[in-house]
C-alpha cells in the first residue's frame, strides 16, 4: 500500500460519511443502541458476579467443640482442621468471645445477656473458611468426623441452593451477552448493508475497471471503524453517566455492593469502545463481500 493510497482511503471514507449523512447517522445510532444494551448487560453481569462472590465468600463452617476439652485437645483439633485439604483458614472463637458477639448483635445496651441467662450457654468453636466456597459441604463432612466436635453448621441446605442460584445467574448472564453480541452484529451489518447497497453501482464499476478487493474495502472499513467507535463512544457516555448517578444514589439506599472500582469500570468502557469499532468492521465485512463478487 502506497502512502498516497492511505490518504486516498481516508479522503474517500470521510467524503462518503458526509455524503451519505443520513445513513451514517442511522448506523452510528444503531451501534450506539446496540452497545448501550450490551454495556448495560455487561455491567449487570459484573455486578451480579460480584454479588455472587460476596454471598459465596460469606459461607463458612462453624464447628462447635465439646465443653469438656482441655486446652491441648483444642489445639490438636485445630491442627486436624488445618490438615484438611481445601481449608483456607481456621479461626478459634472462645465461648466468651461468642457471647460478646451475640451481645453486640442482639442485646445492644438494653439487655445484659450474661446476667439474663445466668450463665454462658455457648460452646467454644472454630470458624473454618474454604479456599473455594463450593467445597464447603465436603469439607464439613470431614470436620464432623474429628473427635471433640459435636456439631457442624454451615447453613446446610441453604448453601447448596445458593450455589445453584449463583451458577444459574452466571450461565444465564453469559448466554445473554453472547446473544446480545450476535444481535448487535446482525443489526449493524443490516444497517451497513443499506449504506453499501446505495453504492453498489460504484463498487461494480470499480471491480470492472480492475481495482482489487482490498482497494475497495479499505474506505468502507475506515468508515465502519469510525461509525462503530462513534456509536460506541456515545453509548459509553450515556452508560457512564447513568451508572455514575446510580452509584451515588444506591450508596445511600442499599446494602448491595455495587462495583465501583475505577480500574474495572474503565476496562469495561474501553472494551465496549473497541467492541463498537470491531462490530463496525465486522458488519462492513459481512455486508461488503456479497457486492465484491463480480
Amino acid at each position: 500500500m502506497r502512502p498516497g493510497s492511505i490518504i486516498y482511503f481516508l479522503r474517500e471514507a470521510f467524503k462518503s460519511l458526509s455524503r451519505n449523512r443520513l445513513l451514517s447517522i442511522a448506523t452510528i445510532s444503531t451501534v450506539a443502541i446496540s452497545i448501550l444494551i450490551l454495556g448495560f448487560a455487561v455491567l449487570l453481569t459484573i455486578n451480579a458476579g460480584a454479588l455472587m462472590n460476596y454471598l459465596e465468600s460469606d459461607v463458612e463452617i462453624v464447628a462447635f467443640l465439646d465443653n469438656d476439652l482441655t486446652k491441648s485437645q483444642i489445639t490438636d483439633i485445630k491442627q486436624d482442621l488445618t490438615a484438611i485439604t481445601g481449608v483456607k483458614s481456621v479461626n478459634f472463637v472462645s465461648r466468651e468471645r461468642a457471647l460478646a458477639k451475640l451481645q453486640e448483635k442482639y442485646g445492644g445496651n438494653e439487655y445484659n445477656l450474661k446476667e439474663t441467662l445466668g450463665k454462658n450457654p455457648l460452646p467454644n468453636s472454630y470458624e473454618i473458611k474454604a479456599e473455594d466456597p463450593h467445597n464447603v459441604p465436603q469439607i464439613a463432612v470431614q470436620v464432623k468426623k474429628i473427635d471433640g466436635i459435636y456439631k457442624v453448621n454451615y447453613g446446610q441446605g441453604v448453601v447448596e441452593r445458593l450455589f445453584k442460584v449463583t451458577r444459574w445467574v452466571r450461565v444465564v448472564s453469559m448466554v445473554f451477552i453472547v446473544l446480545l453480541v450476535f444481535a448487535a452484529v446482525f443489526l449493524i451489518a443490516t444497517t451497513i448493508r443499506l449504506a453499501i447497497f446505495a453504492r453498489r453501482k460504484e463498487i461494480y464499476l470499480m471491480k470492472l475497471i480492475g481495482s482489487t478487493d482490498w482497494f475497495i474495502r479499505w474506505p468502507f472499513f475506515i468508515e465502519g471503524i469510525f461509525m462503530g467507535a462513534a456509536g460506541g463512544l456515545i453509548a459509553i457516555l450515556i452508560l457512564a453517566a447513568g451508572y455514575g448517578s446510580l452509584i451515588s444514589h444506591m450508596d445511600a439506599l442499599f446494602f448491595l455492593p455495587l462495583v465501583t472500582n475505577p480500574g474495572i469500570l474503565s476496562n469495561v468502557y474501553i472494551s465496549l469502545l473497541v467492541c463498537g469499532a470491531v462490530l463496525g468492521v465486522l458488519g462492513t465485512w459481512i455486508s461488503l463481500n456479497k457486492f465484491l463478487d463480480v
Partner: protein
Amino acid sequence: MLVQFYNVSKIYPNGVKALDDISLKIDRGEFLFLMGPSGAGKSTLVKMLFREELPTRGQIFLASRSIVRMKRGEVPRLRRNIGIVFQDFKLLENKTVYENIAFAMEVVNASSKEIKERVTEVINMVGLKGKEKSFPGELSGGEQQRVGIARALANRPLLLIADEPTGNLDIDTSNEIMELLFNINRTGTTVIMATHARELVKSAGKRVLMLEQGKIVADTPPGEIAL
C-alpha cells in the same frame, strides 16, 4: 492474436444455453461488430472477456493468458487491460466529468500526476474540453457516452469493449459515437462492439460476427457487406 475462444459453451444455472460451442479469433487492432437478436448471447460473450461470467466448457485466452484458469487475485490485472463502455453509461452522478474519468485511474492506484495528464488527454480525445466540471446530469446522452468512452480509455487498454454503446442514443449522436470509436481503433486499440443497429454496421465495412441462439451463424470479413 489478442482474443481466442475455443469451443466455449455457457449454460446458466436456470438451464438457459447462452453460448453453444463458440470458437473465435480476434487479431490485435481489429474492429469487430457482434450482432444478433436479443438473447443470442452477445452480452454473455462480452462479459466472458472481462471475466464477469465464466464458460461452462471451453477455453478463452486474452493476449495468450487463459481467462478461465486465472485465479481470482489475477482478475484485476486482466481488467486493467480492458476498457468497457456501457449502454447506460454507468457514470457516477455525484462526480464531475473530470472525477468520473480520474476515478478509473485512482482505483488502479495511478499517481496524481499521471492522472492529471491522462485525464486531460482523453477529455480532448473525446471532444469534451470545457465540460470537465459538469456533472453527468447536466450533459446530453451523447456527451455522457463520451465520458464513458474517455473513462474506458483512461488506463490505455489493449481492448475496448462496447456493449450496445449507442442503444440509448439518436441516429446523429450514434454516428458521432461510432466515428469516435473508429478513431480510437485507428490508433491501434482493438474494439469489440455488440449492437442491434444494422444501419451503423452496414456502412462501416468492418468484420461482423452474427450470433443466433448462442451459435455463430456468420463471420463476415471487413470490406464485404454483411447481412
